[in-house]
């Protein structure tokens, strides 16, 4: 069974909320990503999403954009991201998801990319700018290799589309909690609530994980009440980018532990 699917169904059985953490591969130091991921797993992550840097990340706010630019300057490519997955997989069995934009993946080749995912031990993929209508080939290749093809839904997604996307998605359904790009914002939980309640009604096949803008233990706890788990990216990445801060990993770890505690309380 796919590690991601197995982990999420185990959590559901235990009535625990999933914590998925996004980090940009190769940020802020290329060599730090693998030990960072191991640290995050130890601190309580259930799923790790590794971001493949792209020059023009239109779904991302300033924090992830900047991390992408740094990662690209660090020479991170899709190949090197896959290599990191391989190194992480040699050290632990955490479910790993690769998240990126269509162009680097298409340039690599869709089938070749999913072959490589299988080979290095990635469990799922998210392509931020590949909506359902353009995804036939992608889903076919992913299904054939038992890689989860995770789709996103947004507050603007209609009820009918929620159901269509739920049927197409595997692994989980990524709920964009509020209309907008990635990154923290005020009054998040209240805005997210109504969408998650609506999504819950229409989503039957997949666990619902909510992301975009969740930045504090309080956000995490409140949002998680309406879904199966949460995804944190920008707030974690901000901790990793503090210049000359030798306690980066410890601070990231403390942050994740605080989120974990809030989710489990």
């Amino acid at each position: 069974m796919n590690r991601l699917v197995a982990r999420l169904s185990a959590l559901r059985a235990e009535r625990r909320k999933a914590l998925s953490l996004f980090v940009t591969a190769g940020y802020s130091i290329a060599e730090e990503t693998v030990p960072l991921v191991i640290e995050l797993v130890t601190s309580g992550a259930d799923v790790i999403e590794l971001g493949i840097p792209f020059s023009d990340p239109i779904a991302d706010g300033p924090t992830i954009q900047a991390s992408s630019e740094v990662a690209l300057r660090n020479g991170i490519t899709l190949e090197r991201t896959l290599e990191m997955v391989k190194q992480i997989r040699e050290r632990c069995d955490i479910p790993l998801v690769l998240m990126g934009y269509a162009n680097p993946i298409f340039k690599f080749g869709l089938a070749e990319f999913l072959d490589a995912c299988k080979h290095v031990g990635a469990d799922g993929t998210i392509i931020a700018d590949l909506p359902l209508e353009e995804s036939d080939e992608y889903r076919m290749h992913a299904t054939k290799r038992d890689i989860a093809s995770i789709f996103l839904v947004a507050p603007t997604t209609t009820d009918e589309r929620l159901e269509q996307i739920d049927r197409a998605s595997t692994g989980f359904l990524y709920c964009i909690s509020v209309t907008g790009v990635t990154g923290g914002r005020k009054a998040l939980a209240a805005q997210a609530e109504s969408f998650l309640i609506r999504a819950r009604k229409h989503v039957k096949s997949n666990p619902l994980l909510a992301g975009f803008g969740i930045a504090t233990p309080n956000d995490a706890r409140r949002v998680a009440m309406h879904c199966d788990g949460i995804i944190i990216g920008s707030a974690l990445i901000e901790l990793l980018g503090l210049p000359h801060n030798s306690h980066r990993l410890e601070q990231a770890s403390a942050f994740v532990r605080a989120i974990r505690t809030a989710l489990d309380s």
Partner: protein
Amino acid sequence: MKRMAEALPDQKGHFGTYGGRFVPETLIPALQDLERAYSAVKNDSSFQKELSMLLKDYVGRPTPLYFAKQLTNHYGEGKIYFKREDLCHTGAHKINNTVGQILLARQLGKQRIIAETGAGQHGVATATVAAMMGLRCAVYMGTEDMTRQEINVARMRLLGAEVIPVTSGTKTLKDATNEALRDWVTNVRETFYVIGSVVGPHPYPMIVRDFQSIIGRETKAQMMQREGRFPDYLVACVGGGSNSIGLFYDFLEDDVKMIGVEAAGLGVETSYHAATLTAGTPGILHGSYSYVLQDNAGQILPAHSISAGLDYPGVGPEHSYLKDRGRVTYVSVTDDEALEAGLMMTRIEGILPALESSHAIAYLRYLMPKSSVKDIIVVNLSGRGEKDLTAITKAFNQSRTSERLL
């Protein structure tokens, strides 16, 4: 070849393998709404009547088709005509599209307009029509472009638009488009995004093409009246490709040769150019699959052109299709060739062209020696050059030939 243009794009917005809709899910419902609204107004006589009236009385259409006698004599072959889009209100063809899209925005009940701009012509055209219709307007512009097109920045602000400086990436049109897309993702419910070229996710390449195709329709009628026949060649510059597709579209099924001129910057053999169709490969940028400038890892490369309006590493998907089909020939000219052509045009015809349009004019030095006395050439003079005075003066001051030229 017959009817090939009529059927495209298909239901999913594809021109052959190109085009489509590669954007975050948040925008998909808005694009579907836009598609529905557009197909409703396409055959709505009151919408079309209002559009025609604005194009006539506000934009100043039809624009003249000017026989350039001096330039024709200079080359001694063929007959050169210019389609005078530079005489449109606000100084370029861009307003043909902004009038149409902002009428659509009103139809959809949107109160806020956003746009991206490179040369500033699309920004000015958007700010102008937004002012006339009483809508709020924000324009994203790279800080490098704000410097080289400072006059247009002042115009947009005067028109009441907010000009939002973009400092990410290359600080030019590509990054301005990224920021406009992020704004739209965030404010999609109340905001209408007026895309300025035949790029972006479906249905934009189709909508912008349709609104710009008036250029070719007028040219056809004017040509029949003047010469009693179609031209032999159409020449237009290509950045994203809106003025060129506007001129070409109505002629696609006719026996007319078409040439799209890209910006070769410092040369296509260098890494400082914007010749996407000449030197790029297919990929995904700003929501559609088309030729792009990219590296082996699929990262988008920075473009370069002296012309801010052509300084873009992508191109409209329909152009990619027309290139692969061999229907349009795409060529490129350098910064220096464009500057020289613009100067010559100014000196012998008394018309100062935009740097973008100067690229189309510059190709005549290659085309005219190959053409015969009987050949008729129509060049799209897409915009006027006042906005470029600073950039042109600076370029000539830096160039060794400055004394000879100025």
